[in-house]
């Protein structure tokens, strides 16, 4: 009978909370969008599945040993814990957790040892998160793989398009301002670090967003990553109306001169030039852009093809699996279901829209004052979301002029946008994270 009770108490049905049911439905929804609608499936399948796993009642997969101990501990154990933390046990488990978070590394270690001695252990997803994201390694490895898949040829043929990659990052900073503004109006409650991490959604670059939030706002990481990847998938819906509204039919018809041939040697030297500039000017962007340049150099140099192939395949795939499950661990109900999440989702789409608009407007300006014709539609590709945004530019361009193929021209601002948001990330970490 006792065993039956043990089994029942251990079952999910006996422990389930409404928030968990809701989050499992969110997880299923993400899987539906990824599988049926093709929304960034490589990330949203693992994230959605990880979100379901994180909310299995009683399994504690997304919690650390200390979290699990706090949720299950008996009064005697809690009293012992409160004594170590130097707070009163009557203040409740929320206060205990806050005291734990605020304590130093030595107290952390002591309480981890206490939880371990009491028989609690880290959940599977918590371990994945610690290894893949808290250490920072997974976004960096993905950036290396992306670098090894990136062709800077179109950018090198027309370096001016780097300005479009800069312009589109305005979405990031406008959103930071928005988040700070909402906080000062009392609608939301974001610190400046939170605001910076939320802004990066506008960079339209998943690993950059994850990297920055893992440093500046780990609690918001789940919502930020979900927003970033969802909106990246929605680029074909978000961007075209904005692009059409801000351009005239005549501008959309502009044909651009064919790109010059770029030599292999330029492609080999470019990542080194970029690296040196980063080294001299913005060391805080060095991990992200360093790994990106390293991947690109491995691809272009032509003498380490086995390493480049692995960076583009086995290594990035393995990392993506664990990165996705780890992000999913942040979809645990008691941390995700929060008014701030709605704020993040709202601000994220604003960031995308502003970034798109800025790119198009600066492209118009450059067309007006430059010597060679420049179709403003390629400005929207500056948000990154490689290669979706470039394809959107191409598609909208074809509507206006069926013989106008903008794809290659849009790849320049598109990869410039990756560099631009990594630079923005470095600035944020430098100004806010220090």
């Amino acid at each position, binding site marked *: 009978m006792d065993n039956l009770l043990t089994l029942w108490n251990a079952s999910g049905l006996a422990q389930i909370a409404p928030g968990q049911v809701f989050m499992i439905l969110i997880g299923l929804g993400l899987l539906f969008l990824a599988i049926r609608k093709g929304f960034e499936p490589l990330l949203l399948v693992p994230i959605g599945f990880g979100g379901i796993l994180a909310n299995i009642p009683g399994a504690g997969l997304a919690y650390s040993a200390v979290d699990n101990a706090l949720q299950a501990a008996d009064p005697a154990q809690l009293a012992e814990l409160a004594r170590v933390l130097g707070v009163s046990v009557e203040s409740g488990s929320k206060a205990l957790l806050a005291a734990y978070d605020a304590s130093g590394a030595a107290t952390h270690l002591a309480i981890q040892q206490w939880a371990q001695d009491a028989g609690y252990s880290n959940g599977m997803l918590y371990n994945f998160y610690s290894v893949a994201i808290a250490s920072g390694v997974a976004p960096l490895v993905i950036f290396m793989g992306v670098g090894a898949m990136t062709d800077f040829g179109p950018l090198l043929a027309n370096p001016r398009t780097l300005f479009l990659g*800069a312009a589109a990052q305005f979405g990031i900073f406008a959103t930071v301002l928005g988040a700070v503004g909402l906080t000062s109006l009392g609608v939301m409650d974001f610190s*400046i670090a939170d605001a910076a991490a939320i802004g990066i959604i506008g960079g339209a670059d998943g690993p950059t967003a994850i990297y920055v939030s893992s440093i500046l706002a780990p609690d918001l990481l789940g919502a930020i990553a979900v927003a970033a990847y969802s909106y990246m998938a929605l680029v074909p819906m978000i961007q075209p109306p904005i692009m059409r509204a801000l351009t005239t039919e005549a501008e959309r018809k502009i044909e651009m001169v064919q790109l010059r041939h770029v030599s292999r040697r330029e492609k080999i030297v470019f990542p080194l030039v970029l690296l040196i500039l980063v080294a001299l000017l913005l060391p805080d962007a060095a991990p992200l852009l360093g790994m990106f340049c390293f991947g690109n150099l491995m691809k272009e140099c032509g003498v380490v093809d086995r390493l480049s192939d692995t960076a583009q395949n086995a290594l990035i795939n393995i990392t993506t699996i664990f990165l996705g499950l780890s992000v999913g661990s942040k979809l645990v109900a008691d941390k995700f279901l929060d008014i701030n999440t709605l704020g993040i989702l709202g601000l994220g789409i604003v960031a995308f829209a502003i970034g798109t608009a800025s790119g198009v407007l600066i492209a118009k300006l450059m067309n007006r004052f430059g010597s060679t014709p420049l179709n403003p539609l390629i400005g929207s590709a500056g948000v990154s979301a490689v290669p979706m945004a470039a394809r959107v530019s191409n598609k909208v361009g074809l509507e206006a002029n069926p013989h106008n193929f903008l794809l290659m021209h849009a790849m320049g601002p598109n990869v*410039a946008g990756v560099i631009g948001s990594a630079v923005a990330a470095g600035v944020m970490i430098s100004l806010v994270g220090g």
Partner: protein
Amino acid sequence: MAQGVELMVFGMGTVVAFLALLVVATTVMSSLVGRYFPEPHKPSPSRPQPAPGAVQDDAELVAAISAALHQHRRKK
């Protein structure tokens, strides 16, 4: 709020300044490479001939080919 404005001004400024510098650096680099190190002749896109006297790692080549053949045989 002031903090947000500052972040926007300095952040956006840095991004634009950095990418402007990159435009300059890239343009200079391309013209230097084009003038002093032009491509000798049209190379195959991703398998350049090794420079004369260059060392090539045969063992890995042999390993790669044998692995490929092997896999090919397995796939049949």
